[in-house]
């Protein structure tokens, strides 16, 4: 038994990153390094208005004064921020009307990823704002969305076309000096998605962005701003794969969600960036600030994430529950293998009355990886009848990995109820035996147990993602038993 386990482990550990390939496209890069000039260069390149440049410069100056955070339970060589290309865009920047006009190299890439645009368009009813490196190349389904009054475009277009909305909401959830990486993002963000759902509109389709990091040495600084006006509903998908690279790439994104009265936002992520090879070489550094605010009464924000990639993940999608009766949810599966390190979790800040939050976090560590859950539940003094339930379970595979939990519970209201529970265990021999007794081989048994372990989270993913997420889980873990 031990032997087969080892074999399976070996096999899993050695399976190469499936989505590793590099596309050859000429890029229009910013000079290496970060100075005020770089910020001006990016802003000029994007033909931004003066106020945007000012905002970027302010963030840049704040960033310069900030120390790099070191509290997370991850270890990595110091990032040289002066050795990064902060802007790279595909050269071809002509306005495109149909897919035929898109660079064929690009289309090939998408095909390899299984997201050929027209196929997606026809079959899955998904509007995709494709972000290839840093500039949105093609936005589909714009027309359909326009009818409903939904604005779904790239950040740079939004700055030009809807400055009043951008001005009002950008930085309102994640202030430009919120933290080191958020400030960096504010200063140099290249592009991203902007979405506005007007009052009472139920977005008819799942909105989706497909991120891909491509150019060597270019940090990707995405920025997403999503506003759900009163009584609206939107489900947003974010998914990532990246080609194999030897050097570490930095990704510091910022996502801001705003839900007004009675609005609901569902934000789902599948992250499968290059995690580095079996020796822990290479891989993406993923330092993301994601935060949503339930500004209005009865609003709801729900984060669902499946994290399987990146060498280092450093990510805490949070909810500020400011409106009365608002609801925050966080469902997460974080899988680490080889030398991956993940420090992820959430923050639920209860401010309004009768606010509710629910946290379900499942961590799976294999190989020599370290997987941490770090979460904060804070109940303010005035958050009467606040209710929180958190559950974080860890599954360990192999005796070289680690699982850690750092939950912070801060309660200042005596009518609130806060519960937290966590367990750590491995796949029991008795469980495996049960399966094998019934003629199911070990590998399938493990896949089924892992799937069962994560089911609560997977069930919260939209259909389109659930399939991909399950596949990802199988690729990264199937069969590895400790």
């Amino acid at each position, binding site marked *: 038994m031990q032997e087969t386990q080892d074999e399976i482990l070996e096999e899993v550990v050695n399976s190469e990153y499936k989505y590793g390939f590099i596309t050859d496209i000429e890029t229009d890069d910013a000079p290496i390094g970060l100075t005020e000039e770089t910020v001006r260069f990016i802003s000029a390149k994007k033909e931004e208005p003066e106020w945007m440049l000012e905002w970027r410069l302010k963030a840049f100056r704040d960033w310069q004064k900030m120390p790099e955070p070191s509290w997370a339970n991850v270890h990595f060589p110091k990032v040289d921020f002066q050795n990064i290309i902060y802007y790279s865009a595909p050269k071809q920047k002509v306005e495109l009307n149909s897919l035929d006009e898109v660079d064929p190299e690009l289309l090939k890439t998408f095909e390899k990823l299984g997201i050929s645009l027209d196929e997606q368009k026809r079959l899955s009813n998904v509007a995709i704002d494709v972000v290839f490196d840093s500039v949105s190349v093609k936005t589909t389904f714009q027309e359909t969305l326009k009818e409903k009054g939904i604005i779904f475009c790239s950040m740079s277009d939004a700055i030009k076309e809807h400055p009043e909305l951008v001005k009002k909401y950008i930085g309102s959830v994640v202030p430009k000096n919120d933290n080191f990486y958020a400030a960096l993002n504010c200063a140099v963000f290249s592009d991203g998605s902007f979405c506005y759902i007007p009052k009472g509109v139920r977005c008819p389709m799942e909105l989706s962005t497909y991120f891909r990091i491509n150019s060597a040495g270019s940090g990707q600084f995405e920025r997403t701003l999503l506003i759900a006006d009163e009584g609206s509903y939107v489900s947003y998908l974010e998914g990532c794969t990246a080609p194999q690279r030897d050097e570490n790439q930095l990704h510091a994104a910022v996502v801001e969600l705003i839900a007004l009265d009675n609005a609901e936002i569902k934000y789902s992520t599948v992250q499968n960036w290059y995690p580095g090879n079996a020796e822990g070489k290479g891989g993406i550094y993923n330092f993301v600030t994601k935060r949503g605010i339930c500004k209005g009464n009865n609003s709801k924000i729900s984060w669902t994430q499946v994290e399987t990639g990146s060498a280092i993940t450093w990510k805490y999608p949070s909810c500020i529950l400011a409106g009365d009766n608002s609801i925050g949810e966080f469902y997460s599966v974080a899988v680490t293998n080889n030398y991956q390190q993940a420090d992820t979790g959430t923050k639920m800040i209860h401010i309004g009355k009768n606010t509710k939050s629910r946290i379900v976090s499942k961590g799976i560590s294999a190989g020599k990886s370290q997987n941490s859950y770090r979460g904060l539940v804070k109940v303010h003094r005035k958050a009467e009848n606040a209710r929180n339930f958190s559950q974080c379970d860890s599954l*360990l595979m192999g*005796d070289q990995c*680690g699982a850690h939990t750092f939950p912070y519970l801060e309660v200042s209201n005596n009518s*609130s109820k806060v519960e937290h529970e966590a367990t750590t265990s491995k796949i029991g021999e008795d469980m495996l035996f049960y399966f094998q007794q019934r003629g199911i081989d070990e590998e399938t048994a493990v896949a089924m147990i892992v799937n069962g372990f994560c089911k609560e989270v997977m069930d919260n993913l939209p259909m389109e993602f659930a399939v991909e997420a399950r596949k990802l889980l199988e690729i990264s873990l199937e069969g590895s038993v400790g």
Partner: protein
Amino acid sequence: MIKELENILPTITDEKQKASLQKAITIGVPSMKQEEWKYTYYNKILQQGFTTTNLEGFKKLQGLKIEKEFIDANSISTNRIVFVNGIFHNELSTLINHPKINFWDSNNVTESNTKDFLIELNNALTTDGVFLEIGDNVVVDELIEIFYINQNCNQIINLKNNIKIGKNTQVKFAEYYINYDHSPAYNNIVTSIDVAESANVEFYKVQDGGNVLNITDNTFVQQAAKSICNVTTFSLTGGITRNVLQFDVNGERAESHMNGLYLLQNEEHVDNRTLVNHNVANCESFELYKGILGGKSTGVFNGKIVVAQAAQKTNAFQSNRNILLSNDANIYTKPQLEIFADDVKCSHGATTSQIEDSELFYLQARGIGKEVARGLLVFAFGEEIVEKIKNEALKDKLEKRIAELLKIEI
């Protein structure tokens, strides 16, 4: 504070103490910017005007009189070790006479190499402490009581205890903090307990010194194979109290128990930090801390379980449950697991809630007034910890005291 320490640095003669003091000066006073001190404002203790002096200056303070009756009234055993203002008090103490039990006239100073200000400060300026060695195969039936009596002392009292328990030995300790004349006091105490193979040690800490007594306590337990050790901490009244409890489990099949009850009704601040290091396989640890927070009190709980890679088949369970009685009370809890071994069963849980209305209603429907009903429910909540005490006299004493604090009759 640091300046004071710098001033007394030249007067210290012992090399080890000097090194510790130097270290304390370098480390500096804990600040809320440090993760371990996130919720506790240490300077608030110092702001009450405590000073430090070297041992010579300290001895001049002595000569105060405490009646024997006072100890008799507070004691439930005949084995007593009494410290008054940080100095061993011979007349008030009664020591066990047993060939295998040795009390040493102590100078407990050791080479200390920590990064902790309080531990270094304690080592540098320690005045006295329990230095006790109990041999193999001894069963001490009666509780050994340790009293820290404070009487009009504006000095920081540093006591350092070193307790060694032999193989197969069974012993129970209880320590009490007493504030004799209710003047502000601050005790900084470091205790290390070494538990040999198959020994069984119970250690009860009773912190009930009134609201101007501040305590910073560091307790370290080393456990050998097959030993059982239980440390239970009761924080009932006090100013700022910080308890650091660390278990290092170094022998297989050892069992560690950590329990705590903090019942706070005024403006107390209690910070409990526990750490269990599971270094070897096949061990178990159980931890249960319960808190009742009323008034403007603050409770902090930080429980950490570290399971090393070698510690396969570890079972570690941790639970922290809190009741908030008032809207001005705060609870900050952080149960933490760090696990590097895969064949383990570890869990932790934390809850914060209040008294159930339905439970209150049940009692009220039976003719019990609301206040009393609330008191009964809180008492029952705390009783889970109290009933773990394996000494009847101490259990009775604590039950009575808790009932008195909750203004109920039992």
